[in-house]
């Protein structure tokens, strides 16, 4: 199944072998598989700094003892079974990671089967979907796993034929000798399984020019099941004797049940049990987002429809608790107040900002803000759990099964190893399912019920209780000299904290661009105490900071009388020598890993040349500055570096003068994720989806906190639809760097590119999201 989608891989640099940053220490073991095949198990010590998913800060550091593993199984019938170790959330990883193994193995893709690996840290090491980590973490180890298996099959063939290995070659699942003899992998597997595995350090890898699977567009491995409606997702899990549950929490975050009309609800048709759950003390893991079981009322029924309908009759007296005093309007007013005061914390102070501002020929000042945003996985949160004989088994659409396992064990009071987690396909992830609160709820309800239980949240519960993308407020000032050069820059970012720590995904990196590129620069923060749970959302931090920084830099370009694209290209030309922020002991990756030019724990340092490269190319592809646009139409550009990916994007927009309606005409994306696009079809799909996802956020998405609760319900939460979905043209610039991930980095720049296009079209600057179209009307 290949795509007809055009794909262009361009750029001067030829593909090369991966960079040397990945550890080559590795161990390989091999054993005969049941049924006469070969089972290859690879374990490589995990990279010490790559052990924690982005957004999950403050988890205990697990050191380098855990391991990355991969499994290849070759059966006598030539079937090659490859285990996919990380959760599939729509990012296409269940297809692309096995492609890497299959390529080096020289497997016949038609004979490849892919299985979702069980959750087992001892065997598979880190298993999570977050931070666009999966490709950079697994590219090197999985190529070596595939190559090692291939080498053993070649040895087995050479021994069979009594010829040197150098006389043997592989292609499409067969070994062929110079003399023309040929054996299939299935025929060789049993013999190969008896051989000693080769040294992974020295096993030879293919020349990328010989790739036949990597770089080819291959359709998602589960697509045939998707299009015929076969069960795949967490919500589709079904088992004998299963009951259905809903769980109602207090509308105010952190509120508790005082009393409920339990007996009345229990008497309703189809209702089996009603449980008031009031956990004592903290129930989460020691992490801002790993919230555990909250107080609430569980209704268990013989059908989900009946359980959910019973919510209409449920009456609860809540103790709303302290968060009931918090509202978005108050936060906005308080942020304004804080902006006039000295910041709580200076993240970075370079040169003499005050002096440079006072000597500047021109000052630009602007205040920006963005709201809380809801992930809105289309598959609502759910899990199916069975608690029996002190053991718990749970099926969950989770991005983070290991953390879920620990949380579930803690919730029901059993050891970690008494919990078995099965990861199902996720109906959307976007970071929401890095939190495991729904797993904890299902586990506890299953324990109380003593029967298999499927917990499913209804849509409004899903919208009103989650880990929101945190809102924020930025107060910028820039100083330009007489030639329009940016000589001073400052941002006072007013965000949120929970008890002295930045709220999850609300931090700002000290390396945020233009840090290191402007001589006199200050980045500072102040925070407001928040009781609303927040967490990572697709390109956490970056999805908000790209909007404010890249929009304000566009303001600076216009103030300087410069072309915004050329202005960005020029800005990235002057890197000052400064080390990236160091990883903090016991913490996750440095915040700079999320963007803004900071370091990344497993990849090469930020290179300004790569930023300039994609900017120049997006200018060419979009016809920047060369096309005559009608009145009311404009183009905007932005660049952002996050998750090791370099993305420059141009948006063309037309704004209706009568009502300010914003119509996106087209988006152009140029991305640089290194030397190789593993699966072009999947890569383009991710880029197009990310761009439209960002536009969707900018056009309408907003969660308002009113007296500690979410003011919106689903009908008030507009998501982008077909009639608003603009064409998105995607290009990749190939550079000689190890390939990195696609789940996130295409999103952040589209929002400022859109807002900058609106300015070009109307002369009106969007400084607050979502976009208020009423201010865009012609006056």
């Amino acid at each position, binding site marked *: *199944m*290949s*795509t*007809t*989608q055009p794909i262009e891989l361009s750029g001067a640099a030829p593909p090369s072998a991966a960079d040397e940053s990945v550890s080559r220490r590795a161990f390989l073991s091999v054993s005969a598989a049941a049924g006469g095949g070969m089972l290859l198990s690879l374990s490589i010590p995990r990279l010490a700094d790559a052990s924690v998913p982005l957004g999950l800060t403050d988890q205990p550091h697990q050191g380098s003892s855990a391991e990355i593993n991969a499994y290849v199984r070759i059966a006598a019938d030539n079937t090659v079974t490859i285990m996919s170790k990380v959760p599939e*959330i*729509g*990012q*296409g990883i269940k297809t692309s990671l096995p492609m890497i193994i299959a390529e080096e193995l020289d497997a016949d893709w038609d004979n490849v089967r892919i299985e979702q690996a069980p959750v087992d840290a001892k065997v598979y090491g880190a298993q999570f979907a977050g931070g666009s980590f999966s490709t950079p973490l697994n590219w090197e180890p999985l190529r070596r796993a595939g190559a090692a298996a291939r080498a053993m099959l070649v040895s087995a063939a050479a021994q069979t034929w009594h010829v040197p290995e150098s006389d043997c070659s592989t292609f499409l699942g067969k070994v062929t000798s110079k003399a023309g003899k040929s054996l299939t992998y299935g025929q060789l597997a049993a013999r190969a399984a008896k051989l000693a595995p080769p040294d992974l350090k020295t096993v030879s890898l293919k020349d990328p020019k010989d790739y036949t699977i990597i770089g080819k567009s*291959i*359709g*998602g491995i*589960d*697509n045939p099941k*998707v*299009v*015929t*409606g076969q*069960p*795949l*997702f967490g*919500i*589709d899990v*079904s088992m004998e004797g299963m009951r*259905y549950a809903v769980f109602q929490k207090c509308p105010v975050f952190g509120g508790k049940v005082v009393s409920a009309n339990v007996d009345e609800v229990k008497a309703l048709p*189809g209702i089996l049990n009603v449980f008031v759950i009031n956990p004592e003390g903290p129930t989460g893991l020691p992490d801002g987002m790993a919230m555990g079981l909250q107080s609430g009322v569980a209704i268990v029924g013989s*059908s*989900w*429809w009946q359980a*959910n*309908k019973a919510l209409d009759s449920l009456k609860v007296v809540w103790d709303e608790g302290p968060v009931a005093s918090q509202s978005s309007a108050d936060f906005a007013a308080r942020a304004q107040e804080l902006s006039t005061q000295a910041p709580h914390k200076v993240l970075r102070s370079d040169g003499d900002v005050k002096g440079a501002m006072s000597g500047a020929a021109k000052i630009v000042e602007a205040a920006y803000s963005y709201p809380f945003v809801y992930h*809105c996985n*289309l598959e*609502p949160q759910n899990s199916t759990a069975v608690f029996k004989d002190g053991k718990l088994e749970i099926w969950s659409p989770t991005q983070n099964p290991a953390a879920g396992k620990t949380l579930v064990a803690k919730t029901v009071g059993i050891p970690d190893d008494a919990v078995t987690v099965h990861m199902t396909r*996720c*109906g*959307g992830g976007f970071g929401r399912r890095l939190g495991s609160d729904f797993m904890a709820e299902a586990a506890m309800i299953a324990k109380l019920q003593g029967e298999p239980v499927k917990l499913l949240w*209804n*849509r409004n519960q899903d919208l009103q209780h989650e880990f929101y993308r945190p809102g924020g407020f930025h107060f910028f000032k820039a100083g330009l000299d007489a030639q329009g050069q940016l000589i001073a820059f400052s941002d006072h970012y007013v965000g949120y904290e929970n008890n002295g720590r930045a709220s999850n995904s609300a931090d700002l990196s000290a390396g945020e661009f233009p840090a290191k590129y402007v001589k006199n620069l200050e980045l500072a923060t102040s925070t407001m105490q928040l009781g609303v749970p927040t967490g990572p959302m697709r390109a956490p931090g970056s999805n908000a900071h790209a909007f404010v920084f890249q929009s304000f830099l566009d303001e600076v370009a216009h103030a300087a009388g410069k072309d915004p694209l050329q202005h960005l290209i020029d800005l990235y030309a002057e890197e000052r020598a400064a080390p990236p922020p160091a990883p903090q002991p016991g913490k996750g990756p440095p915040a700079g890993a999320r963007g803004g030019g900071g370091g990344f724990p497993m990849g090469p340092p930020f290179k300004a040349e790569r930023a300039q490269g994609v900017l120049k190319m997006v200018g060419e592809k979009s016809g920047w500055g060369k096309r005559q646009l009608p009145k009311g139409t404009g183009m905007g550009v932005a660049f952002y570096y996050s998750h090791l990916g370099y993305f420059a994007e141009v948006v063309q927009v037309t704004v209706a003068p009568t009502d300010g309606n914003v119509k996106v*005409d*087209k988006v152009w994306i140029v991305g640089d994720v290194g030397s190789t696009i593993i699966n072009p*079809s*999947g890569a383009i*799909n991710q880029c*197009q*989806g990310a*761009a*439209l*996802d960002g536009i*969707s956020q900018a056009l309408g998405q907003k969660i308002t906190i009113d007296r500690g609760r979410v003011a919106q319900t*689903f*009908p008030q939460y507009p*998501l*982008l*639809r*077909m*009639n608003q*979905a*603009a*064409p998105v043209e995607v290009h990749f610039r190939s550079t000689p760097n190890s390939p990195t991930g696609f789940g996130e980095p295409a999103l952040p720049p589209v929002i400022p590119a859109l807002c900058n296009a609106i300015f070009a079209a109307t002369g009106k600057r969007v400084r607050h999201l979502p976009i208020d179209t009423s201010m865009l009307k012609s006056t």
Partner: protein
Amino acid sequence: MSYTINVNGTPHTVDVDGDTPLLWVLRDTLDMKGSKFGCGMGLCGACTVHINGMATRSCITPISAVGQAQVTTIEGIGQSDTGKKVQEAWLKLDVPQCGYCQAGQIMAATALLNTHHKPTDQDIDNAMTGNLCRCATYTRIRAAIKQAAGLPTTDSREV
């Protein structure tokens, strides 16, 4: 109460409350998991089925209103020529990301092609705007509908 409904050409008798939405009868009583629960309000389209060929939100259609109508779900849509072509186009263009909405998209697209053999971009907008795709695979959904209709897959709205 007992109801007999006709799903993909087969009669099924179920004993449920009359206000039970067709979606939950399909999913939990008949164990046909293809039709998806997204919002329960008829706003996202993940639950789309055909009732006498019309794209219908099964999450807000009570079982008592189904009567003798022919219900077609994603599990049965491949039995029709149009449905099969749509499924094949979805595979050929590798449309899905997470895949959760795609059953509903395929049902809406098939209903469109049954009435508009050569849909315009405007026809596609009109027919498909009720179906959310949170992964925003709209570009490929549009192209796949055209592919299934035997039209060039280029987007006529391109600037």
